């Protein structure tokens, strides 16, 4: 298993970088979705408060 001779570091670096990049883009997307939900909730709260004041 994983007996890739002299090429082992190159193979592992490639797969490792792929894992980091793909995980990064997945995490970034979910953080962005969460931030968008929060921004909309905040905007709705502010609008409701404004309506109550009026």
């Amino acid at each position, binding site marked *: *298993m*994983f007996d*890739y*001779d*002299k*090429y*082992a570091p*190159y*193979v592992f*670096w*490639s*797969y490792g*970088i*792929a894992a980091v*990049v*793909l995980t*990064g*883009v*997945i995490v*970034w*997307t*979910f953080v*962005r*979705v969460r*931030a*968008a*939900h929060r*921004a*909309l909730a*905040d*905007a*709705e709260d*502010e*609008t409701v408060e*404004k309506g109550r004041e*009026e």
Partner: protein
Amino acid sequence: MAIMTVFANPHRFMSVSRPFAWIFTVAGVALIGVGVYMGLFLAPADARQGDAARIMFVHVPSAWLSMFAFAFMAGASLVSLVWRHALADVAAKSAAPCGAAFTALCLTTGSIWGYPIWGTWWEWDGRMTSVLILFFIYLGYIALWQAMDTPQKASRAAAVLCLVGAVNLPIIKFSVEWWNTLHQTATFFTGDNNATYGFKAPMYVVALGYLSLFGGLTLFNMRAEILLTRAEMRLQRRLALG
């Protein structure tokens, strides 16, 4: 055309897209996992490149996706410019970060693969240079959305940049035929049976996984974009009310 009209409504899109986003993302991750397992453990070592050839299972599909994502963005940009489709801009903008990530992955894994096989990390040949240009176009496209005063101006300018940048796609594809390059010519989808099933299977599984992940993340990004637009509109309405 009918599908285009159905999904022109952001409300309808928001109501139906969530399960698809999850299904595509989860299926993408699972397929990539299976493909990586096949590439690392089941695929044979290449006769000439030995185990270094295993890098192709993450490198080549990322190259396909980098071009596919940009072609998708160009298509969406064209729809946006011609038909003013409400979601076309959102789709193009949402696909860009994922496309840029696949292009960065293609460049880095290609460089790592190149060193033990070619003896160099980088060569300014047609294929590598044109993919690097694609990566810069992605960055420029993302930056352009942030740089303009209004979303309307940004969408128009970004769509034009995307369509102009799409000229680079055939250059990438045919660069290995037009110029003498260090990069090898196409191996897959050529009609020649020059790759065995042991190589094709993990390649196609990872490619399908990348494609599914791209679809899922683009849908999630589109949803985030629509939510942010709604939040912005509510705040503007509040400001207008005083």
